């Protein structure tokens, strides 16, 4: 048991280190930060001086090592673009992304399950077919297009919702929240739908197919024979058995909602870590890119580690 856990932890750390190495090897292909940092009137001398002080002349694995040594001491460096500590910037931006991810996750889960059940029970109804067809559109349209369409309809044409930003936020200690103001809540609507739409259709289709599968089972047939009401059969018996794979998928998808909020955040000028990352790429802000990638990989590796350890808890055969 202990050796299994230790092995998993060791493997996770190894994965993290490799992700970092690959990231640092890639940074040189993103471009050269020197030009964006120095402005139009730089001389060749300035270029050399800055490259030297930033350590950009060193091979990438040396740069990576320097990064690791400082990161272990809690120093993620200074952003080239903003000139402020990277840790501070990320801490400032993370609440926006996490709140957006939470709301879109909830949206995807609630609507996905409800619509999944509906389309499974009324599988040949007009409404169910319409939902299924529309969900295909939802899966196949790219996120930025959905976002811009929503802005066009609900902000420009109808003037119901804001087109960009987070509205007013309230600071609670180190956390900034949009949940406590009206403009903050209203601002969450369009980005959450944009970000959660794909996950919603995914969950809906999953629930539908699982539900159809379950409804064919013998125990449902016997339940009907016992004369139970439809509602009890559908929700007490069928739904419960449907939810196991849904929960697994949702857990995994939450990670990707956070990691891939980049496009939604860019379309809505949402001040989260995704927008920060896009700006960092354009500016070749290596400290921010490195910190963001490490953060995301820690998150993914962490989720996987927890899942692995849960398996141990659930499955006695692994404990041997």
């Amino acid at each position, binding site marked *: 048991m202990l050796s299994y856990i230790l092995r998993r932890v060791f493997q996770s750390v190894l994965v993290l280190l490799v992700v970092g190495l690959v990231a640092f090897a890639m940074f040189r292909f993103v471009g050269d930060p020197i030009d964006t940092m120095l402005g139009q009137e*730089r001389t060749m001398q300035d270029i050399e001086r800055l490259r030297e002080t930033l350590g950009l002349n060193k091979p990438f694995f040396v740069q990576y090592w320097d990064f690791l040594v400082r990161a272990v001491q809690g120093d993620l460096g200074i952003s080239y673009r903003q000139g402020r500590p990277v840790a501070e910037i990320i801490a400032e931006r993370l609440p926006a992304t996490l709140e957006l991810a939470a709301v879109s996750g909830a949206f995807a889960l609630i609507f996905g399950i409800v619509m999944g059940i509906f389309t499974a029970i009324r599988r040949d109804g007009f409404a169910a077919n319409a939902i299924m067809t529309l969900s295909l559109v939802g899966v196949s349209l790219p996120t930025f297009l959905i976002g811009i369409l929503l802005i066009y309809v609900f902000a420009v044409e109808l003037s119901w919702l804001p087109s*960009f930003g987070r509205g007013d936020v309230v600071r609670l200690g180190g956390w900034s929240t949009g949940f406590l103001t009206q403009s903050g809540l209203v601002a969450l609507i369009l980005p959450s739908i944009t970000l959660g739409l794909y996950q919603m259709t995914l969950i809906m289709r999953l629930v539908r197919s699982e539900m159809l599968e379950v409804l064919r089972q013998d125990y449902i047939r016997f339940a009907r024979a016992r004369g139970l009401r439809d509602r009890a059969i559908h929700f007490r018996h069928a739904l419960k058995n449907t939810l196991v794979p849904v929960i697994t998928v949702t857990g995994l998808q939450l990670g990707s909602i956070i990691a891939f909020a980049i496009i939604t955040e860019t379309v809505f000028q949402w*001040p989260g870590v995704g927008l920060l990352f*896009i700006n960092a790429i354009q500016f070749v802000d290596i400290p921010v890119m490195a910190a963001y990638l490490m953060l995301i990989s820690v998150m993914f590796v962490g989720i996987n580690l927890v899942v692995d350890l849960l398996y141990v808890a659930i499955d006695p055969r692994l404990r041997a």
Partner: protein
Amino acid sequence: MMMRAAALGAAFLATTALTTAAVSAETLRWARAAEALTLDPHAQNEGPTTTLMHQIYEPLIVRNMEGQMEPALATSWEPSAEDPNVWVFTLREGVTFHGGQEFDSADAVFSLERAMTETSNFKELLSSVSEVRAVGPYALEIVTDGPNPLLPNNLTNIMMMDEGWATENGAEAVQDYAAGEDTFSARNTNGTGPYVLESREADVRTVLSANEDYWGIGEFPLAASEIIFTPIQNPATRVAALLTGEVDFIQDVPVQDLGRVAEAEGIEVITAPQNRVIFFGLNVGAEDLANDSVEGANPFADVRVRQAIEIAINREAIQQVVMRGQSEPAGVINPPPVNGWTEALDEYPTYDVAAAQALMEEAGYGDGFSVQLDCPNDRYVNDEAICQAAVGMLAQIGIEVNLSALPRAQHFPLIANGETDFYMLGWGVPTYDSEYVFNFLYHTQTEGRGSWNGTGYSNPEMDAMIVSLASEVDLDARNQTIADLWAMAEEEVIYIPIHNQILNWGIADGWDTVVDADDQVKFKYFVAE
């Protein structure tokens, strides 16, 4: 209990009253694609940063929105009668910083010296300065290492800080991210400008309020009492925010949305030619090009090939098709407001494929050759589309162009490192003088000059003339040298000018301004309609 309710009610009423007051005052909500990078006025010489700085800080001399130099913290300036190497400035009296400190010559000396330090991004503009000295509380002398007739032109973006404030807060040195520094001046401001920084969250929102002690009250319209700046990167979202009335002013209306914005009710698009010319550079200096089909020779070294390209580019087609009319075809890589520009120079050659083919034939490249064109795809208006158009045009004279379009962070290092054969570049001239163009684009690439000359071009005679511009006091003689230099440049054709960009600002009814050719908004000139 009653008491408390009453108190609460009163407090509530007070807040409501406050909010109403804030709304009725003139708040201008402003958006543009890019965010300022820092609040340290000497750290980043870059458009969006300088724009924000101009609202909070002030230079000695400022350019107004029409591009003319105007007194700001200096009321007058002239070359010294005794020493041609000295400029004498009279400073404005009775000016206070936002923190209450008085502005005097010690602050000016401190600020200029700070802008000349190694980590300042403005030091090149002051490279001719050998000493800055205060000769009285409101008298300043700047000594240059030779006569510099154009020194005032270089001061229009160099902001004045308070010496005491900077020293107290350990902000004497310019912010230097290279050293991993996080300086006080990068987060806090204390200027003399028309607006005071209220709050700032980078990439989210920056709020400025009117400076009630501003020296220019009564002199400038100062119509906005509060300015809220939000960067909105996505062009479609930025336009939507203007259309919905969530912002009042956007600095960059995308070309494809101009019609829609202009038609919308309550919004106007105002335009002006920008101080920025777009052109191609040709690597004429290399022995052999890296990415071409000609072995052992450089086709661009032959001036006839360069001339052929010059007349094979159909500038009017690019203007109409690619730019939708939003450009002014150019014949010289010098924007119109700049000293040295003439109409004759800016006349571009007639598009003539037959003549271009003849020139290619004459140069021995009748069968053509292939070459790689490096182009940015996120820097200038429709940059990649312009390059694509050029690919088709050059194919007509047998030059097969392989287009490599890259983001700016990858494109510009190619020019600095001399790793490109054929590239696109845009150039604005903040000093409004041709010397700036020659210094960076025509002078041989050396440690101090020619840093944007990616063509490998080197002409000692031209270099000597360029260097002489810096210290020529006789303005007529100097202008003659500039004219001669342009004449030489026209013959050499190392750059192929395409066009000058046009700026499009979107502004809501209720506000008005003229468009600044440098894209530098100065809100003190904004008027309410």
